[in-house]
Each structure stands twice: as C-alpha cells, then as structure tokens.
C-alpha cells in the first residue's frame, strides 16, 4: 500500500497547488475538458492538467469507468463535449473509425519538445494520439516455492506446465498455475496472447476475414486447456482482482498477470509482505518454441477531439503536455509504467519493460479487432470446460465474428 499512499499524497499536493500553476503552463486562454477512465495513474495525469487552470483557462475533467461507452456520443457533437479523450489501443479505434479526433503534428512540433518519438501514435503518418504509459501481462512467480522444488525460473508456458506438475506431485502447491480465464474480455485476452505466442495472425492480410481457425488457433486453445486442467475447479471465474487476493494468500505460484497490479502484489507494506518479497517479475513466457512472448502490449494515451476550436485544441494540448511532463513521472514513479522521458522503471515495472524488450507485439489496433475479441469472449467457454472440441469452438467464434462484422459493414 505504501507506494499507493505516496501517490495519493502527490495527488493531493497537485490538487492543492492548482492555483499557482498559471505561469508554468503558459496558456493564454481556452477550455480544456478531459474525458478519461478512472484509476490512480489517470487521476494523477488529470489532476496535473487541472493545475493549468487560470482565470482565462478552464479545466474540467470527467473520470469515469463508462468513458468508453460515452466517448463517441460526447465527441460527435459540435463543439465536442470534451476536448481531450484519454484512450488505449482498443478504445481509440472507434474514434478513428468515426473520424472524431484530429492530427496533432503541428502541436507536437510546437509544444512537444519533451515527447519521445515512441510516444507518438501515428496513423498514416499523422500523430493521432500521444501515449504516456504502458501495460502488459507478464510473468510473476514465487521464487522460493520454485527453488524449494528444484525448478528453474520458467521461460515458456511448457516450463510452467511442467513446474505445476512437479509442484503438485511433491505436494507443495496443488494448483500452482493460475490465469485470467473468466469468460468475456479476460478469456478472449488470454487467447489473443497465446495465439500471438504461436505466431498466429488474426486476419487474412488486407481483409477483415478472421483467420483464427488454423493450426495456431487449435494449438493456442489446447495449451489454454492444458493450463486450465492444472487449476482448481473454479478456473472459469478467475479474473485479475480475485487472483491478486489468491496470490497474496499464497495459493498460486505462477501467473501471467497485468503489470498494473505488480505494484500492489510486490508491495512490502501490503496485505501479504512475505509473498510480496518472494514474488519475481519477469518477461511474459513464450510458447511452442516461439520467440515472441505470448502477450500483448497496451498503451494509454490521449487524443484531441476534432470538433473543437483551434484555441481549445492548443490549450488542451499544452495542458496535457504539462500533465505528462517528465517531472510528473519522476514524482510518481510507482503509479504506472510511464513512457515519459527521464522515467526510471521501478522494480514493479521491470516485468513490463522486460516484456517490451523481449519483442512482444502490441494489441492490434485494427477496426474490427474488437468484434473478434467479443466473439472470442463469448464462445470459448464451452471448449474450456471440455464440452466441445477446439475446432468447433473456433468455428463458433468465426461464425459469431462473421455475423457481427457483417452487421458492422466490414464483411459483405
């Protein structure tokens, strides 16, 4: 909890210092209206932007978990209800599809001197979003548990399966392996990870036709089922929050878990200090002899609404530059794996950066990826419970995707 406390304190300090920050941002006038998801790192960013408020500059923010569901309607109006939308790989897609955000190249050239080249999200050569933090699922394991059983640190899913079998046999831990297998978004995300690990491509090149039914798809599902077979009977309800608690209680020894929770899991002042000290963070495992880690990289960043005045666009961009300035990241290093200049990864962010340097692939920003993700989430549960074959499950996914993609106009 300690690092969170510190960040919360920083948050309070930022809010408190709001009044005197006018000179620092240098914005003459305009209106900055931020729509964002609601979690600590984004609260810090929004609070830092709010510090740019002055008699001539208004800064308002709406941080809500429903941001994804209201952003399209909110940015469609003219002028847009919000000037800044905080987005991720997935949620930027509908904004791009509906042409609701504007290129920021001019503003980057003018005010973006603190940005690093890899923060610029470019579509067709134009900067459409600025990323400021990264997240990915990566390996976490219990050092002492594995060492006691004479197992080396796992590098692949096959290693993990073997290690789980040994731990069970020796009676150390009956269900050492866990994963986010809750049907819906989580389960689909695990499939996406595994499928990329086997080198699969989701779509036939240049088309919106799903291409998951091949060998890589079956292999990915078979591996997921093999993992599930080592887990406790309730594996179909496992998700991040619950697994975090299970991990703290010492029930599990290995998982491919979101980097964003690594801070809480390895927190020496948290609920389970022994487990925290024993947890090692590493790059996501590979699978099937592949070299790419079986995971996807995610970024959070911001985009500028299209339907706003140039004055508001400039004010918003400059306020956001202030919000993601290097000193924000250095003041709150533990709040996220920042992509900001001068940020030194904390021990909790090591897993994320190792995974990035191991060459993991970003989550595809394709217009129809979300539809495939939903189809996967809805149709893999029967296979995972042994009620149908992998081929049948993939055929169901493809059928569901085809229906949805036809309706959305991507397939004829």
């Amino acid at each position: 909890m300690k690092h969170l406390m510190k960040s919360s304190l920083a948050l309070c300090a930022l809010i408190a210092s709001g009044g005197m920050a006018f000179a620092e941002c240098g914005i003459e006038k305009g209106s900055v209206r931020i729509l964002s998801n609601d979690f600590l790192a984004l609260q810090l960013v929004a609070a830092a932007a709010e510090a740019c408020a002055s008699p001539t500059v208004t800064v308002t923010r709406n941080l809500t978990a429903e941001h994804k569901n209201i952003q399209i309607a909110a940015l469609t109006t003219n002028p847009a209800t919000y000037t800044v939308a905080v987005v991720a790989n997935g949620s930027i897609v509908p904004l791009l599809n509906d042409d609701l955000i504007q290129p920021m190249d001019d503003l980057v050239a003018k005010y973006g001197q603190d940005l690093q080249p890899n923060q610029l999200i470019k579509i067709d050569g134009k900067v459409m979003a600025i990323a400021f933090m990264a997240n990915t699922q990566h390996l976490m394991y219990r050092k002492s548990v594995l060492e006691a059983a004479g197992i080396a640190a796992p590098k692949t899913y096959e290693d993990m399966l073997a290690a789980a079998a040994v731990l069970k046999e020796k009676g150390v831990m009956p269900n050492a392996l866990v994963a986010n297998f809750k049907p819906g978004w989580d389960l689909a995300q695990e499939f996406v990870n595994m499928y990329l690990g086997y080198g699969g491509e989701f779509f036939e090149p240049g088309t919106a036709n799903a291409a998951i039914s091949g060998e890589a798809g079956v292999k990915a599902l078979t591996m997921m089922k093999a993992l599930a077979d080592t887990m406790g009977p309730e594996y179909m309800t496992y998700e991040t929050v619950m697994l975090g608690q299970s991990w703290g209680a010492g029930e599990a020894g290995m998982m491919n878990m979101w980097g964003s929770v690594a801070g809480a899991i390895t927190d020496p002042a948290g609920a389970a200090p022994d487990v925290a000290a024993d947890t090692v963070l590493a790059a996501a495992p590979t699978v099937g002899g592949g070299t790419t880690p079986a995971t996807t990289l995610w970024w959070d960043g911001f985009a500028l609404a299209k339907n706003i005045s140039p004055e508001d666009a400039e004010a918003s961009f400059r306020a956001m530059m202030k919000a993601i300035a290097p000193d924000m990241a250095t003041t709150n290093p533990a709040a996220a794996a920042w992509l900001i200049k001068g940020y030194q990864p904390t021990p909790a962010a090591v897993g994320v950066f190792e995974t990035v340097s191991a060459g993991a692939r970003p989550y595809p920003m394709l217009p129809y990826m979300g539809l495939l993700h939903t189809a996967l989430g809805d149709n893999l549960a029967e296979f995972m419970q042994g009620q149908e074959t992998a081929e049948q499950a993939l055929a169901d996914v493809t059928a569901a995707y085809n229906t949805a993609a036809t309706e959305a106009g991507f397939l004829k």
Partner: protein
Amino acid sequence: MPHRTFFLFMLPSLFVMLLFIAAPIVSVAYQSLFVEHDQVMTEVESCDPFSCTKEMRVDPTAMAALREAAPMGKFNGLATYTNARHLATAEIATLWQTAPTMGAFYDGLMNLPFYKALAFTLTYTAVVTPLVIILGFFIALAINAIPQIIKGPVIFFSLLPMIVTPLIGSLVLFWMIDSQGIIGATLQRIFNDPGLALKASPTLTWATLITYGVWHSAPFSFIVFYAGLQTVPKDTLESAMIDGATRWERVRYVIIPHLMPLVTFVALMQLMDHFRVFEPIVGFSAAANASSLSYLIYSDLRGAETPLFGSAAATSMLTILGVVILLMPVLIRTWRDFGRKAH
C-alpha cells in the same frame, strides 16, 4: 369521465412515457432494420510506442459521405432478426437436415447464442416466478401472525435482499459461495465432498442463480401479500370457522381467493423482471454457463469497442415480443375483466 378531462389528467404521464420510452422503442424498432454501411477500407502505416505496421483503416471521408447520404445505415430488412446471433433460421434449417438424432439437434441448437440465452432465460423465469410467489405468500402468512411489537424490524430485515444494491450483494454472495467462502465451505462439509464447487459446474451455476433470484425477489411478493392479508374480512373467516373449516381450508377457500388479484399483479411484474434477468449473471461471473437475452444485448452494446446497435435493437425487440407472449394469459384475463367493467 369525459375524454378531455381524461387526457388532461393523463398528459404529464403520457408525455414522459412517449418521449422517453415510446419514441426510443420506435427508433430502436426502426434501427433494427438497418446495419452499418459497408466500410471503405484503406491500407495505412500505423506506429505505436512499440513498433510500426501496415494496417487496414476505415476511410473516414468516404464513410462520412455514405452516412451523409443515408444516416441510418444500410437497409437490411428483417435479416438481422434471422441471422446467426438472433433467430438463426438458416442455421436451424441446416441443423434439422443434418443432425442425426434429436440429441444432436438439441446440442446444435444450444450452441446458437440466442437459443442458449433463451433456454436459461425461460428456465429462470419459469422456476423463479412461482417459487417467489409461494415463498412470499408463506412469509407473509407467518409474519402476519407474529406479535405487533417486533413486526417493524422483522419486515425491515425481510426486505434486505431487495434493497441492498445487487452490485455489492452479488459480490459478497459470490465470495461466500466460493469453495473457500463460508457457504461454499459449509456445503462441502455437509456433503462431505471437498471437490464440490458451486461456481464450476453448469447445473450448480444455474441452481445458484435461481436460488439468488428467489432470495432477491421474495421480499417484493412478501410485502404485497402481507398487505393483502390485512384486508381479508374477519367475518368471512369467522363464519368459515363456524362452518367447521380447518385452518388449511380457510387459507385455501378464503385467503387465497381474496389474494388472487395480488397474485396476478405480482406474477405480471415478476415474469417481466425475470425474463430480463441480467445482473446475477454478471455479478456471479456466470457467463460461462448461463446467458440471457439481456446479457446478449449488453454484450452487443458494451462488449466490443464499437457497439452493434442493430443487433442490440433486434434482441431488444425480441425481448419485448417474448414478454408480450409470456404475459398473454394475464392480458387476456385483464381484457375480460375490463369488458365487464366497461360500459
């Protein structure tokens, strides 16, 4: 009552309902006949913090022109209703011809999302509604007989399942039925089966959801019946006693007929609410084993980054149709009663 007075009295109520419910229903019904325009795609290079790749993108200018010409999208007729995510007519026809046995046909049918959802929705509605009515009736009978002084608190505690927000109610219950939780662990001990996990098997998940449904809705029927019991005429009860009716006969021939109109009301509301079951499926992470029409709608609107309005609209219209069919017997009865009253 003259027409003019009637409509003056009804005006505010009709106004809000027409504006916020009827108009959206009409627009949803209309929307369900359309799908998105064919997307115009171009290949572009996109870069993120990790790498650059060639990717397909929607061409926004071309799409804007299409939407300008036809804002509702591409006319699709009833095809959305008959596609694989809804009534799946083509799939069923194929299945009917190819399935070797009735069992295989049934399995194939249950693999179609709409019918899978319908199976749970109907089971849930059919089991929970009568149980809620019966349980509520007996609770009402029993609480009606307790001393006046403790009635207040007893009624409050009886209402708790209905008034604790399901968001947290199901979260806490979900934890309690975990195999590590108090209910899960106790059941394991009672049945002496350490492998027993309520969240794991489809049958047990259904049973859990149905139990939750009864628990959550019983207070509603209880409070309505309890109130109804207060109006049972004392002299009818007494004369029944004098005629030598047993306790059970008095309940059967005096109390139940008296409460019949309330039973209709509760059944009407409960059938409708249960047919739209949604919250427990999410709260209990039960999507692997149970799905409902409302869950399908939710998944269309919130599951993907781009909401599928046409598909959600079609499922919503089918839900309304389902409710109307379910309520048909009650509606016909009301119509007859009305015919007697009307002049």
